[in-house]
């Protein structure tokens, strides 16, 4: 082919040819992309289903023990009683014990609260109230006796 033969092709025709080729390429690209996207989506979907099956289980199939682990019970301020001892708030959650504590005299109640809720020793309490240690001990025991009779009577 002589070099001059290139000139014989009409430039417009070449242009048209390129245009046509371009369009066919796009058509194939589009088709390929569409199919690829759909296949990918399908495999993603299947994988997500498999993942869900592995990590999730039906509520009805969970054992009672596991369900009980899930629940929480609310606590309300009204359910508990606060006592002020040594400028500290002591929290008593049990209603019955709180009622029993209410019947005691202030000093005995303070001793009980300090001993059991603030975890102080007899000697520390005695120092705080400036009384003898044995007094604290006696008070504590009589208070415990009173609480015991109260709680035993109730039910």
């Amino acid at each position, binding site marked *: 082919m002589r070099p001059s033969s290139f000139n014989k092709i009409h430039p417009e025709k070449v242009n048209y040819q390129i245009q046509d080729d371009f369009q066919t390429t796009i058509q194939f690209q589009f088709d390929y992309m*569409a199919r690829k996207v*759909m296949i990918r*989506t399908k495999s993603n979907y299947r994988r997500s289903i498999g993942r869900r099956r592995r990590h999730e289980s039906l509520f009805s199939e969970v054992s009672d023990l596991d369900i009980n682990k899930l629940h929480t019970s609310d606590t309300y301020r009204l359910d508990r009683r606060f006592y002020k001892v040594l400028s500290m708030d002591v929290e008593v959650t049990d209603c019955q014990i709180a009622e029993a504590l209410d019947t005691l005299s202030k000093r005995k109640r303070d001793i009980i609260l300090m001993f059991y809720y603030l975890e102080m020793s007899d000697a520390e309490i005695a120092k705080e109230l400036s009384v003898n240690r044995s007094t604290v001990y006696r008070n504590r025991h009589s208070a415990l006796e009173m609480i015991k009779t109260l709680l035993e009577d109730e039910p």
Partner: protein
Amino acid sequence: MREKKKLIPFSIIEAANSGDAIAIQYILKHYEGYIVTLATKTLTDEYSNGYFFVDKEMQEQLTTALLQMILDFEI
């Protein structure tokens, strides 16, 4: 000899890419069969008879993906 692939005309691709509803519908129609083929599942019962059924959810997802792809396609 392999059958020649049926392709979507260029003008329709162009129109769909710029958001033409009719062109998009044409493309969806074109791939409808393919989507159904992909979304078909086989179920086997206790007598090992196979049943075909089309997973509607997967079909929907595939259609959505195709729509997204049409709009994202760069010419």
